[in-house]
């Protein structure tokens, strides 16, 4: 596809999403909420995917979403900051913690890195529960206001959400975050930065033999990853207007991995497609809710067996040329 066709296609898809979804869900706020939630999850999931892309597995994204969520909640309720400042602040707070943890952690070999991230979500939950002075402990932080007005030089850019249809306003906020997140990831992957990340995924030793600063690149990828987690966490906080230590649990962290697998690890839009299909699928099939973990597990096995490159690797014959995605090899050692 040429560049222009790609841009046109993206513009059409975005327009359809922005107009079509609210239209389809008119008067059915519950379904609009499901789509909004999926978009927030897809933002957080993009970070997990990027870590796959450098050949590592981050099983602790929930922890960083939780950190971002609390950062936003505290900034808004305790410091009285506008949500529009609190959201990027949440991203940065989560990124800062991510980098502090990442600097030593990312030096570990792939397996050890994954094992430690696995424990992060639970650690974050326990911390949120016990740091009562900051987080209000198990009671959580409630009554978080909706985003207020955003005005620049007296010109209202975004009106106060309280004056709008709340469900729609949140949907559009989620949609904008979604578009920006995936535009950034797409750009990263298609720039030389993406080449460098791919080189790490394939062979870290070889990359460093060409002067690639491997440890620094890993930390950069992790910084981007945790920034998205923080922003996504802040989005959930303002959407639910509350946060608890269990807002993001270990289960969520593992679901992010599954979303990436389903969509396809070799495709930028894999995590987006995976999140929407799986999350919305289960919301629609409410009756199966109690079997969700079991069905997810079966699905995961099925995908690995029959669709190792994810849903996006399915191509319509003759319509689009088949593409071999680059799949992460197991992280290089030494």
């Amino acid at each position, binding site marked *: 596809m040429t560049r222009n066709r790609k841009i046109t296609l993206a513009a059409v898809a975005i327009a359809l999403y922005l107009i079509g979804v609210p239209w389809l869900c008119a008067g059915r706020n519950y379904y609009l909420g499901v789509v909004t939630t999926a978009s927030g999850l897809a933002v957080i999931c993009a970070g997990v995917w990027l870590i796959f892309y450098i050949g590592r597995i981050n099983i602790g994204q929930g922890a960083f979403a939780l950190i971002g969520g609390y950062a936003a909640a505290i900034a808004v309720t305790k410091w009285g900051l506008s949500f529009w400042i609190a959201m990027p602040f949440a991203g940065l707070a989560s990124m800062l913690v991510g980098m502090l943890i990442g600097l030593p952690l990312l030096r570990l070999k792939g397996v050890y890195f994954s094992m430690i991230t696995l424990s992060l979500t639970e650690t974050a939950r326990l911390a949120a529960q016990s740091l009562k002075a900051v987080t209000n402990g198990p009671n959580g932080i409630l009554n978080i206001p909706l985003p207020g007005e955003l005005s620049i030089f007296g010109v209202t850019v975004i009106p106060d959400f309280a004056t709008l249809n709340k469900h729609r306003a949140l949907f559009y906020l989620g949609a904008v975050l979604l578009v920006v997140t995936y535009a950034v990831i797409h750009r990263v992957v298609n720039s*030389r*930065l993406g*080449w460098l990340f*791919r080189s790490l995924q394939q062979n870290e*030793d070889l990359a460093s033999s*060409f002067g690639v600063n491997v440890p620094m690149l890993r930390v950069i990828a992790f910084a981007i990853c945790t920034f998205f987690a923080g922003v996504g966490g802040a989005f959930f906080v303002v959407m639910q207007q509350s946060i608890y230590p269990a807002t993001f649990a270990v289960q969520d962290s593992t679901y992010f991995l599954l979303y990436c697998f389903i969509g396809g690890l070799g495709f930028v839009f894999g995590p987006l497609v995976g999140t929407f299909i799986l999350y919305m699928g289960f919301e629609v099939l409410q009756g199966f809710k109690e079997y969700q973990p079991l069905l997810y597990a079966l699905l995961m096995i099925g995908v690995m067996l029959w669709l190792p490159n994810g849903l996006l690797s399915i191509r319509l014959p003759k319509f689009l040329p088949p593409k*071999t995605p680059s799949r992460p*090899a197991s992280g290089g050692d030494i």
Partner: protein
Amino acid sequence: MAIMEVVKLTKRFGGLAAVNNVSFDVHEGEILSVIGPNGAGKSTLFKLISSFLPATSGKVVFRGEDITSQKPHVVARKGVIRTFQETTIFRDMTVLDNVVVAHHLHSKASLIGFFLGTRVARDDEAGFRRSAEEIIDFLGIGQMRDEAAKNLPHGHLRALGMAMGMAAAPKILLLDEPFAGMNAEETESALGMVRGIRGRGITVLLVEHDMPAVMKVSDRIVVLNFGEMIAEGAPSEIQENEAVIEAYLGREDEELGI
């Protein structure tokens, strides 16, 4: 002129001295081969020089600067590039992309520049692509440019490894057994490649078991045995050296090509 001095370099793995008190100079623009029986410590020596392994003692001085305890990517940036004994490439990338990535060292753009696609970043990219095309043509794998690297036959893989080494435009290129698994004809053309690399002003350090090839291509040879340096000299001197013949005893006919 010595471009690199290896001074009393030692590496111990537990009780085993894989490289023991080895000292030699590398002269600018030469092809210097390191030979020795299996397990003599050749690959370990290369890893020490390129800082992929920390030395137990001794040092490596490159252009007057001690590079012994520096990070591998820093040593690479200074112009000391290693290739790997096992054919090591980015398997899922195309041949051309492998060589483009290997130009990374010479990137002028910052990481932010890459992201924003600044003019500098785009110029880099275009320049690397041109240079990569030129290098793969030079090494005779130009017709495979869009193949996934993992699909290349063995001889071409080795050539790709060398192409990637050249892309880094090193001052010194360390080639670890580049002729392994090649037939006589392939070796002959690979020898041409090594000479071509030196012809571009790159000093070549070569580890190789193929003795006839080593004797043909080397200016000087360093011989290791059980981690110790037992001889150093021109190919003709090495062929007649008692200690070397001793080390290869029983195999001298094939291995030393005498």
